[in-house]
């Protein structure tokens, strides 16, 4: 499987994506399916309430809403950092409420993640930050290097591979975080406020990058409160408020 993608500096590269996961457990069309999902914290506060949502394969969906709407809670459930109180959520055919610890590890290998604060390791070079993902999954060093070079080239930062995160701008750091998310060639990429720390121009640049990821067939779910950005990118959006879906457009 090969995707033709455009980098931000307009140089065209072909990225050979190696599908490492068996597709047998994946639903044909639905990647994320939440059914009557609720998340209740102590003192009876609901962060999510009776949420039902489907995201199809290859879709690009924005999850939006004000602070405290439940966007990050939903993403934490998708990353299995928390478990739902009621209802269920299926991702790539996995019922996340029933995953055992070893199954969580396997599930997470099929999900790329991007965070607002980049979460790059400051003591490692850019190359090491990206290759690290393959390293901890036990991939052979030659494959690690090849794949890391590919994704760094794709985000247009191969020339900074020996730099440390502190030497990069916010936009560059987020591009590295996206490169890292693509290391395992996941069928789903989840981004939590990926432009929250960036100015409007850089935000659009990052969104274009995620759009290119999506153009290669990867399902992308982005949580953001930036309505202007959603308008500019022009994709499906789901608005949450007080843990409930209040609008779909």
């Amino acid at each position, binding site marked *: 499987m090969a995707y033709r993608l455009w980098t931000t500096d307009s140089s065209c590269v072909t990225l050979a994506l190696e599908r490492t996961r068996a597709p047998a457990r994946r639903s044909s069309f639905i990647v994320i399916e939440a059914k009557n999902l609720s998340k209740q914290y102590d003192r009876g506060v609901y962060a999510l309430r009776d949420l039902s949502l489907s995201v199809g394969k290859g879709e690009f969906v924005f999850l939006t809403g004000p602070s405290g709407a439940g966007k990050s809670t939903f993403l934490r459930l998708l*990353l299995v950092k928390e478990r739902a109180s009621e209802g269920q959520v299926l991702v790539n055919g996995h019922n996340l409420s029933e995953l055992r*610890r070893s199954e*969580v*590890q*396997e*599930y*997470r*290998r*099929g999900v790329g*993640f991007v965070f607002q604060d980049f*979460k790059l*390791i400051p*003591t490692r070079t850019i190359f090491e930050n990206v290759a*690290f*993902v393959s*390293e*901890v*999954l*036990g991939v*052979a060093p030659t494959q690690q290097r090849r794949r890391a070079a590919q994704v760094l080239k794709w985000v247009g930062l191969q020339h900074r591979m020996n730099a440390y995160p502190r030497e990069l701008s916010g936009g560059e750091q987020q591009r590295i975080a996206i490169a890292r998310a693509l*290391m*395992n060639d996941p069928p789903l990429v989840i981004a939590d406020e990926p432009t929250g720390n960036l100015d409007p121009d850089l935000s659009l640049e990052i969104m274009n990058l995620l759009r290119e990821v999506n153009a290669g067939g990867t399902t992308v779910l982005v949580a953001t409160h930036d309505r202007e950005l959603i308008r500019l990118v022009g994709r499906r959006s789901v608005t949450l408020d007080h843990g409930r879906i209040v609008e779909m457009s």
Partner: protein
Amino acid sequence: MRALDYALRHGWSAMRRSKVSTLCAVLAIALATSVLGLVLLVTFNADQVLIRWRTSAEFSVYLRDDATSEQRGVVESVLDQSGAVGNVEFVSKDQALVRFRREFADLASLASELDGNPFPASLEVRLLQVADTDGSGEVLLRRIATLPGVADVRYDRAWLARVGQAIETVRRLGFGLALLLAAAAAVTVASVVRLGMHARREEIEIMELVGASAGYVRGPFVAEGLLQGGLGALVALGAVLLAHRIGAVIWGSEVSALFDGLPLRFLPVSLCAALVLGGMAVGGLGGFIASRRIA
């Protein structure tokens, strides 16, 4: 193998990054291992002496002052015919006095003040090793004690058993103390590793989120503890070796006299290896405890 290589590389890097806290953990393990090493050094040497004494177990047959040469002949004859005796040496009253004056020079004047020679003549019997172990020595002892002209029979075996018990007590006390110190060292290592985990919490979070196995996530922390433990044990071995050398220089002749001519020996390679492995186990346990909540 990749997981092991990864764990060791990153465990070593973590140690180099936090030198001061690593030093604390290494010293804590070194202290525990030094105590154990010193106890082992003392008991190992004491065991060597005890083994030597046991293999040459002897008993002394004290003769009455009025014992006749015929009575002494009967005793010697019984000893010869028993088949349990390797060697018999007669020590006269005069020879016993000379020996006392030589071996206890400080008390020599005391003997001069007494009227006459208080020391009895005796037969010093060296048993064959088999007689010491199969019980025939004790049978012989009981028979000799009943012969005419014999005042008393002193068998070293009971005394050796008491010395053996004393060594065992010292060993157990030392092991107990070392165990307590090892527990404290494991807690120190766990605290140091936990500090490192706090500094690397984002790295751990990323590892968990990309689906790294528990071995990859926890491995570096267990390896860090193992390496700290190994280093601490090596430092301890160096300290015990230094103590051995100093002890040999300062008290060498006294120890040699006390230990029946044997020199003070250092721990054998197998015990040194066991100490290093023990240190690594304590450190690894600390790392394991610290990282058990992740992955």
